[in-house]
């Protein structure tokens, strides 16, 4: 069944910079924004862009990611021809190969891609928060007659040296790619969103295999090689909200952004819905004497305390006289009475007992692991664990 373009989402990494939150689950499956998991954003983008065939590449603790995605029906991706597939490493007649890098993971799934005989392949990261219409990027790719198109976003000049920077000609073609340049020539950072002509990239994989070139990574190996080969690579300028949530700090920041009503990412826009595998939960109950301000609260919460500038995920209980501020509370966390939580991220299913205090004085983010139990009166000082 021929497809014009299919999407491959790189969701493989453990995401060790997310520390305690990725002990049990892969980074793209980490809870976000009250009721979502990080990968919901790219999956919803695919669905909203009219892409109906998606491969999700993963090899690290895939159980939760697998059951979250299911057949993709929540993203309208359960389709007779196409749909969403979680692609893990497998054995062939000779051997089994773990994914050695972003490009290697795609390479290992050549058969899957070939079975749809696509013109184009869209490569995405599973851990970015943004809304983007990939069909418009494809239009641009076709208009430029490009072989490769990389989405770029303008970052502040003083931060540019933290990104992969694309240096472009006037027509948008890329003449140079610099990874974290100390003296950036441009402020166009790669978003890790690529459209390739499938035939071209397929030839690179076959060459890599034959000649043992180990084109395992897009950023380090393949893109520099393509630039050298002058295949025709263009930068597609994207404007809008975009965040990489690969660290504790950036995950907290992006959660806090959502609180700002309609200023950053509008989760309520009916034209670009963010879909997820919804849990069946009762409505949220705000109790007598409770206070909730400046916050995002999901279904199934029972709030008897004071909540300020926080994100509360589904199934959270907050006891009387507890105060929560500037924090991200992940699903099904139970918080007792008279608890104080400030600038913290509390992992799924954790229990915070009565009178516990989670705060510190050096403005770092306090972290509590999934299913951790924080005892009464025990203050976690010192921030990041």
């Amino acid at each position, binding site marked *: 069944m021929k497809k014009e373009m299919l999407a491959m989402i790189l969701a493989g990494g453990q995401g060790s910079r997310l520390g305690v939150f990725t002990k049990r689950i892969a980074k793209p499956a980490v809870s976000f*924004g*009250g*009721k979502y998991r990080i990968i919901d954003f790219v999956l919803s983008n695919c669905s909203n862009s009219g892409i109906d065939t998606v491969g999700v590449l993963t090899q690290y603790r895939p159980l939760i990611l697998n059951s979250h995605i299911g057949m993709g029906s*929540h993203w309208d991706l359960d389709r007779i021809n196409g749909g969403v597939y979680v692609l893990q490493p497998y054995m062939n007649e000779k051997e089994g190969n773990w994914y050695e890098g972003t490009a290697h993971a795609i390479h290992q799934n050549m058969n899957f891609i070939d079975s749809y005989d696509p013109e184009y392949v869209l490569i995405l990261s599973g851990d970015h928060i943004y809304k983007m219409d990939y069909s418009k990027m494809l239009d641009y790719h076709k208009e430029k007659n490009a072989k490769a198109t990389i989405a770029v976003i303008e970052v502040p000049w003083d931060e540019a040296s933290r990104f992969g920077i694309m240096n472009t000609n006037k027509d948008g073609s890329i003449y140079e790619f610099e990874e974290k340049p100390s003296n950036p020539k441009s402020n166009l950072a790669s978003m890790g969103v690529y459209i390739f002509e499938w035939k071209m990239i397929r030839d690179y994989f076959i060459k890599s295999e034959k000649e043992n070139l180990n084109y395992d990574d897009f950023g380090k190996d393949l893109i520099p090689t393509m630039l050298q080969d002058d295949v025709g690579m263009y930068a597609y300028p994207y404007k809008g909200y975009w965040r990489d949530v690969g660290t504790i700090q950036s995950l907290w920041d992006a959660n806090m952004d959502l*609180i700002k*009503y309609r200023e950053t990412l509008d*989760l*309520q826009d009916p034209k670009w*819905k*963010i*879909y*997820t595998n*919804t849990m*069946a939960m*009762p*409505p*949220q*109950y*705000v*109790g*007598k*004497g*409770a*206070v*909730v*301000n*400046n*916050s*995002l*609260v*999901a*279904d*199934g919460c*029972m709030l008897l305390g004071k*909540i300020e500038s926080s*994100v*509360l*995920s589904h199934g959270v209980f907050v006891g009387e006289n507890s105060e929560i501020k500037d924090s991200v509370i992940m699903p099904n966390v139970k918080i007792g009475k008279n608890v104080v939580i400030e600038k913290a991220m509390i992992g799924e299913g954790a229990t915070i007992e009565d009178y516990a205090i989670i705060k510190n004085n050096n403005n770092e983010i306090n972290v509590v692991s999934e299913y951790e139990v924080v005892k009464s009166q025990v203050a976690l000082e010192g921030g990041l664990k």
Partner: protein
Amino acid sequence: MRNECMGLINLNKKGDPNIDKLNYSRPIASTPIGGRYRMIDFTLSNMVNSGITNVGIFAKEKYRSLTDHIESGKDWDLSRKKGGLSIFSPENTESQNMYQYRKGDIYNILSNIDYIKKSEEEYILVAPSYMICNIDYSEALKYHKKSNNYITMIYKNIENSKTDFKGNLTLNLNSDNKVINVGSNISAFEGLDIYMETYIMKRTDFIDVVYKLSNNGDYLYLEDFIIEEVKNNKIGAYEYDGYLKCVKSVQTYFEISKDLLNIEIAKELLYSDRKIRTKEKNESPTIYTETADVDNSFIASGCVIEGTVKNSIIFRKVHIEKGVNIDNSVIMQNCIIGEGAQLQNVIFDKNINLTKRKELKGDENYPIVIEKNISI
């Protein structure tokens, strides 16, 4: 492991209850309740939570909202190859013209008796949509099997029956918990045993009854038959002792809405391990802005709360603008409550657009009901 009881939700009962404007265009079964549910979600979820995987809904009319709500039954885990969920209505049947002159649930069931005949479960449990509770029917089934009753009727003993459950059927029981007679609650006595209009019997017995009654024409409604059958001493009763509300008027609807704000009742009904399931809508979490002031209220997802909400139930995707004061009210899905509005003791149906600075005030016992899809 395999199932021994099927469920039948009967929406085609005698004396159709009615919640005023809320039931202009929908049956009581699909009336929104509790912030994100429809009435029927309770009976449906109770059945599923009791291990019933084959449920037939016998509808009457105006059931478009019902089919829209239930779809394939997937959200209740009832989208199955075997059993699952089926909706029948007098109009929507192959033999629609055959019994058109006969009203009553018996003929509706008769028209679709093949469905019950080809089911394989040994027992059938019949329940209405407006008896709101979180009950484990499997306990009642166990009791029924042990007791060798022909029919087991489920009831609850009500302490304040002078004020609650007015007009409901009552059971007159002997010391063996056999039903001696069925009466009505005329609000004269306390402590009555209120019949929950829910009963269990053998599936084959049920089919026999439907055949016999439709052939003889003695009764038009199943319930009438049971009430008479009581005399033959083969009917027993099972006592339920959890929370129960019979919602069939504006008053009882308003009462249960207040009951839900009692955290103990909410925990029993909604936060139990026996989850009440409903159609999933994928709304975003609710946003509380700086000016939000919410107290003792249920708020569904997808809302934006900028104003003050007390003792109220707010459904999905409601926008409560700045300076609004809502007290003791129920606001259904998709309403927009404009800046500065003052609302007390009101029930707003879906899609109401209330412009700025309006004031509406009902009485605690006679709330104002506003019908859906209007602008005020």
